[in-house]
């Protein structure tokens, strides 16, 4: 499978997006810590989803002593972003996202 297919497949699942959200909030969690973040999943389920994310390059693991830490790797998403975003459109899109953020904050 192409690298990009793996990324899209990994992101197409809400549980895997939730795991990425949790890592975005607190990067470097161990399996045990991630398990506690999604109590509705079994340990095996968390491991299976992390495996898919790791294969897609969205999660990178590093061993430190007894613990394996999981890090959110944003590079594959950046590469996909750059495929369709040129510099002019990126600026306009960023301005719109800022506007959206400001308007929604005010509510």
């Amino acid at each position, binding site marked *: 499978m192409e690298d990009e297919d793996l990324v899209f497949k990994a992101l197409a699942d809400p549980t895997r997006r939730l795991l990425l959200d949790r890592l975005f909030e607190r990067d470097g969690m161990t399996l*045990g*810590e991630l398990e506690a973040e999604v109590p509705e999943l079994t340990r095996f389920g968390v491991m299976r989803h992390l495996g898919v994310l790791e294969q897609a390059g969205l999660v990178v693991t*590093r061993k430190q002593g007894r613990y394996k830490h999981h890090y959110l790797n944003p*590079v594959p998403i950046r*590469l996909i972003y750059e495929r369709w975003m040129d*510099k002019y459109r990126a600026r306009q899109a960023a301005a719109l996202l800022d506007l959206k953020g400001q308007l929604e904050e005010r509510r």
Partner: protein
Amino acid sequence: MTIPTEAGTSTQVYQLYINTAAEEVWRAITDPATVARFFFGQVCEATYEVGGHLRSWSPDRSKMWGDNVILECDPPRRLVHTWRSLYDPDMASEPDSRVTWEIEAQPGGFAKLTLIHDRLDDSPKTAASVRGWSYILSNLKTVVETGAALPPLM
């Protein structure tokens, strides 16, 4: 139970595959002309040995962006240096953090590049700003694989 660890939010990890040999990636990250093309046009000067300085300036050399020290140097596999963002006064007043470049040759002539930016515990502003590594590294990939540089980030 949450076990506090040395890692956590104080560590950021970036990884990508580049379609070239490990030696070429090493050359790209240590050759000033190539660095300028993927790293905001910065001018850099370095002595690639332990204890050597890695200094960088704005493209017109009017502002110093970094004055870092090489902690480990093992071409073409591993380069470790200190990091302090001198281009911003708030970040410059935060303590040094650390950047590790790991290059691993892969089957098929690819190189796996992993960048670890850690020791960021007491440098929250720096930690937030260096999320831009994604941009730098994908730019590096483009420069090495196609010879073209991406347009500057606004």
